[in-house]
């Protein structure tokens, strides 16, 4: 549904996005991750048809943002970090206004459906200025969905929302995926991305530095293991050193030791490590594979890209 093809965008001498390529399929949530100023917002605005690429092209539903920007805009719904509402309007007049801008033939039933979905039915005729931050963000999402777009671009949508509202938003985004929309979630909230995205694109300093399925990224690199043992530290170090296992860390924990190592060949290395520990008289309480969080993967990728 979205294909970003070798897109570069410059603002004067500053390159906000450089030769970026990635895609989002229908019914998929792709998280565009990156630190502040990495180029996420520029990417979302390019796809939304607000900005033109300096080089390359972005195709949305088969339409080019270069040549068919107006039609691209009609297919996209954009939510920004700030709700950006006309606060003197009521929710009803605001949604009706945008429905008409998006050529929705009969706005009333669509608006009724959206406010029901967002839980805003009781405040339909209330001025937006009186809304809480969370309600305003819901109104912004309703605005983005008023024309039933095939593509939803969410640029830091959970900024300043409380945990309960964030959870509601998360559920809503997942439900929109089920409606076969292509969703691009620009965020630096790794927890959010880890929970709901199918794939992750990591951007840093305007360049795409990694792209892949969320689980793939998390499991990429050398898997690491943690053993809880009862023994003294020097015995453990000597035993594992003799067995050729590179210890990454030993830390005392409630009269025991937590020993960590990583390996590309767990079957071979772990067997040697455990045998060496048992031979040295250590008692083994548990051995666990350590799960790498998306945050660990992200930080490692960013560090690697900057090296």
């Amino acid at each position, binding site marked *: 549904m979205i294909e970003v093809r070798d897109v570069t965008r410059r603002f004067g001498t500053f390159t906000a996005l450089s030769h970026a390529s990635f895609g989002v399929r229908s019914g998929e949530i792709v998280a565009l991750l990156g630190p502040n100023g990495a180029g996420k917002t520029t990417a979302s605005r390019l796809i939304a048809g607000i900005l033109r690429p300096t080089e390359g092209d972005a195709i949305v539903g088969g339409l080019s943002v270069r040549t068919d920007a*107006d039609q691209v805009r009609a297919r996209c719904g954009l939510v920004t970090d700030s709700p*950006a509402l006309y606060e003197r309007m009521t929710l009803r007049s605001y949604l009706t206004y945008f429905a008409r801008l998006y*050529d929705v033939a009969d706005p009333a039933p669509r608006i009724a459906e959206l406010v029901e979905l967002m839980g805003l039915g009781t405040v339909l005729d209330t001025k937006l200025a009186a809304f809480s931050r969370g309600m305003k963000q819901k109104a912004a999402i309703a605005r983005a969905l008023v024309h039933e777009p095939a593509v939803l671009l969410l640029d830091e949508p959970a900024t300043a929302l409380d945990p309960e509202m964030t959870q509601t938003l998360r559920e809503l985004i997942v439900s929109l995926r089920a409606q076969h929309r292509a969703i691009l979630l620009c965020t630096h909230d790794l927890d959010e991305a880890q929970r709901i995205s199918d794939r992750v694109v990591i951007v840093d300093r305007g360049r795409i530095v990694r792209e892949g399925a969320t689980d793939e990224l998390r499991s990429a690199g050398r898997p690491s293991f943690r053993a809880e043992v009862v023994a003294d530290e020097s015995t453990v170090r000597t035993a594992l050193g003799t067995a050729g296992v590179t210890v990454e860390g030993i830390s005392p924990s409630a009269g025991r030791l937590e020993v960590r190592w990583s390996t590309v060949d767990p079957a071979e290395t772990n067997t040697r490590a455990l045998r060496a520990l048992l031979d040295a008289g250590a008692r083994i309480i548990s051995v666990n594979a350590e799960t790498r969080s998306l945050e660990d993967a992200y930080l490692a990728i960013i560090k690697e890209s900057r090296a």
Partner: protein
Amino acid sequence: MRKALLLARREIIEQYSDRGAVFRALFFVALPVGLIVINRGGSRSPDILILIFGIQAALLPTATAVNAAAGSFAAEKEAQTLVPLLAAPIRDIDIVAGKLMGVLIPAAGLSIVSLAAYTVAASVIFGEQRIAGLLTAPVLFGLFALAVFFILTVGVWVMVISARVGSQRTAQQIAGFVLGGMIVLLTAVGSAFQNVSAEVVFGLVLAVLASDLAALELARRFWNREEAVARL
């Protein structure tokens, strides 16, 4: 055009949902009437004074338009409401036209009210017959046309510039600068009225129309989504 009208309607509601804006508009409508009342000298008041105040009655309400034009893009930028608008399927020309109509229509309406109020007040003070001879239908129409074209010129210039500045405050400073220019122009127009009446108004209308064409060409060339959003 339908979307431009939609945009204009929202702009007008937005502008006049602020009580301060309503009072400002009423002030500019009342000002020429007040001036003619203060400067009344009965039959001794020269015709030129009545005509100068007539020009002011037509043009003073345009000051509200200058302020609104300055705020139209800059205020939206500050409130960050411009991005959702630019993300909607509206052509650049419809955005500019909608914003311009949002400025032009209420100011033109105020100009009509102001001219009508002024004509009634002047008729009461100087006599119906004298005012009917001075503020003839072509003169009144000319003054109204002058006001409309004037709003168009200043509206476009201020709007194009305000789309390129970062804050409403800067935009208002630009509006202030344009208003200053407007006062100078009003004075110059007053001087030009020393000799002729309807012909001068017609000439002014043509001059301002030429300026409008230049301003609209400027808007067409220099205003675009890219420029507005790149500066957000």
